[in-house]
């Protein structure tokens, strides 16, 4: 039999129909739904008199739009959208973790916690960061609202078979270099469209040594390289994370599942359409300087000079980005002062991220004048963090300790940057206006975000 890659194996197991000249019809094992990209899909179902085919394979929550503190209530339009989610879940018989429920949180954080995200599954959501779930060896990708409607009605999707790409990272990470730096380093190398049309499989000793949280951070940002999805083959780290989760298989089923999962890894001799190798020893803590996630340098570098780019469109994009970011070429990254620090998002708001950051800020104070926010990825993460006393470390340092949601990652709720404000953010996108109109975003790891909050400018924990 022809050797196959992980993504090809998962794909093949889900083909419902294949015909010449057509995309494949793929079965969807889990459909994650949130309030922002679903209301028009439910409305279309209603108008056509259609039902949800498999309500038991749909998990819904409210995350993008929810306020994260009582002091910042939702506006009227947002409230209407949150109510629509609740109404649609009730009407179509879906499981919803609404605002205020202990199970609520960012959709990509709560599904793995519940044991709903398992190896070998197909998972979709009307959200581009669905790639997060690939950390378990699931094939998971973002879709638009029309496709949300299609999956609700049919539990399937028409998809063209994507290309395959291997990104192999080998070696030990230096102290202070985290999963976030691994993925920022990868995107810096392959570019924001380097993965378009492909599923990226992350391989190598560096990836194997990452925790599930770290692997989720890496897979989460696959879309920032343009990839359809990112995946890591499941291994003992995966199985240890999954075992005992509320919806994970148990007993004899667990053994059966393990047998299937162990067969998922890419076969020896399987070919990828493209292969990229990264030496982990070259990776350092990264800080983005521009307005896309490939415009990054290491914290030891200076802001680049647009004239140093050979390609004219790159040069112009860099010059534009520096104008927007109000940065001068040659300025050392460590000299850039920030107005705000955001610890949160589906990229970096899991317990491990909060532990790392809390360790940095414990017994220290946020630099005067800086607004610093911690927004846990889920209410369960929040509760566990509080049991460990992480909230005290953050609060005593001067951070605001919030409820779960997407919050300042995309500025749909009241947590937004003001025009011109500069933010060190653990989120995934530094696009113009992403965290609020006119706001300036620098992407960093939780460790650098925490250290930056204390120092007032970009810094490493060891430098405090």
């Amino acid at each position, binding site marked *: 039999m022809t050797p196959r890659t992980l993504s090809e194996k998962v794909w093949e197991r889900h083909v419902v129909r294949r015909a010449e000249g057509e*995309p494949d019809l793929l079965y969807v094992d889990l459909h994650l739904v949130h309030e922002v990209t679903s209301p028009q899909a439910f409305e279309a179902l209603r108008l056509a008199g259609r039902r949800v085919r498999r309500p*038991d394979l749909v998990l819904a929550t409210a995350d993008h739009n929810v306020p994260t503190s009582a002091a910042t209530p939702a506006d009227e339009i947002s409230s209407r959208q949150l109510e629509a989610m609740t109404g649609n879940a009730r009407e179509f018989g879906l499981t919803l973790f609404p605002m205020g429920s202990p199970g609520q949180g960012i959709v990509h954080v709560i599904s793995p916690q519940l044991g*709903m995200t398992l190896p070998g599954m197909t998972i979709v959501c009307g959200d581009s960061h669905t790639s997060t779930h690939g950390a378990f060896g699931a094939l998971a990708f973002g879709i638009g609202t029309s496709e949300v409607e299609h999956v609700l009605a049919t539990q399937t999707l028409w998809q063209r078979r994507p290309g395959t790409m291997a990104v192999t990272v080998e070696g030990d990470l230096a102290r202070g270099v985290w999963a976030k730096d691994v993925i920022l380093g990868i995107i810096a190398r392959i570019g924001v469209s380097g993965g378009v049309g492909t599923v990226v499989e992350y391989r190598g000793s560096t990836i194997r040594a990452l925790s599930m*949280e770290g692997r989720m951070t890496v897979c989460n940002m696959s879309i920032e390289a343009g990839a359809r999805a990112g995946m890591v083959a499941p291994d003992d780290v995966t199985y240890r994370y999954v075992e005992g989760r509320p919806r994970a298989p148990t007993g004899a089923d667990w053994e059966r599942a393990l047998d299937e999962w162990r067969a998922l890894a890419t076969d020896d001799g399987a070919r990828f359409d493209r292969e990229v190798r990264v030496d982990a020893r070259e990776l350092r803590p990264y800080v983005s300087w521009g307005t896309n996630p490939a415009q990054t340098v290491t914290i030891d570098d200076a802001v680049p000079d647009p004239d140093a780019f050979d390609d004219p469109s790159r040069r112009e994009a860099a010059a534009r980005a520096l104008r927007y970011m109000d940065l001068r070429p040659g300025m050392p990254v460590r000299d850039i002062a920030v107005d705000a620090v955001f610890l949160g998002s589906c990229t970096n708001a899991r317990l491990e991220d909060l532990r790392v950051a809390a360790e940095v800020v414990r017994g220290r104070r946020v630099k005067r004048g800086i607004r610093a926010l911690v927004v846990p990825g889920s209410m369960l993460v929040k509760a566990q963090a509080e049991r460990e006393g992480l909230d005290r470390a953050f609060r005593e340092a001067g951070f605001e300790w919030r409820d779960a949601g997407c919050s300042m990652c*995309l500025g749909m709720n009241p947590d937004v940057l003001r025009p011109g404000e500069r933010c060190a953010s653990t989120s995934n996108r530094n696009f113009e*206006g992403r965290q609020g109109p006119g706001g300036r975003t620098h992407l960093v790891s939780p460790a650098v975000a925490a250290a930056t909050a204390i120092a007032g400018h970009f810094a490493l924990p060891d430098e405090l």
Partner: protein
Amino acid sequence: MKPVRRVAGRVVPLDRENVDTDQIIPAHWLKRVERTGYAPGLFEAWRRDPSFVLNDARYAGAAILVAGPNFGSGSSREHAVWALQESGFSAVVSSRLADIFRSNALKNGLLAVEVAPDVARRLMDAATREPSTEVAIDVAARTVDAPGLHATFALDDHARRRLLEGLDDIALTLRHEADIAAHERSRPRWLPRAPRPGTADAVPSGERRRGGA
């Protein structure tokens, strides 16, 4: 969806690469529950700059947007497609379109066309030099025509047929109901199901005993 056979008209040249969907329609517009009302949000931030190409009266009423590579990157928001259509665009041409954007566009009958980089460049230059340049895109023939330019583009048969006939995807898929049901019978029984409504909050309590959440 209405059938889309041919798009013809003037062209707006948006000569930037990696235009992400946050620029096409900023997030605060996504709070709406309707499918309409997004035109005022199209490129909202960039339109505040009087020199932005969409503010140039010579391009008013254009049907086609030509953009730099990797147009529509980032967020999966279909609102980006709705905002473009509502603003009068029937086609987007680029040397490379982001995957989700391209899929969203075709689902809505916004003709998303990938052409060779030199073709995109020539269209961009022609529209920049002469805003009255007319371009025609033919779905059946898979061709792009402009004065002195004739090019083809790739579009799989399935997508082409859907556009030409304006087919409803869901109705098409439900013709394969038997295949879907057969697949469902073959799925391993241990695959997870959502906790039933009402019991949902009780479920994650298993989390307590874990060190990690």
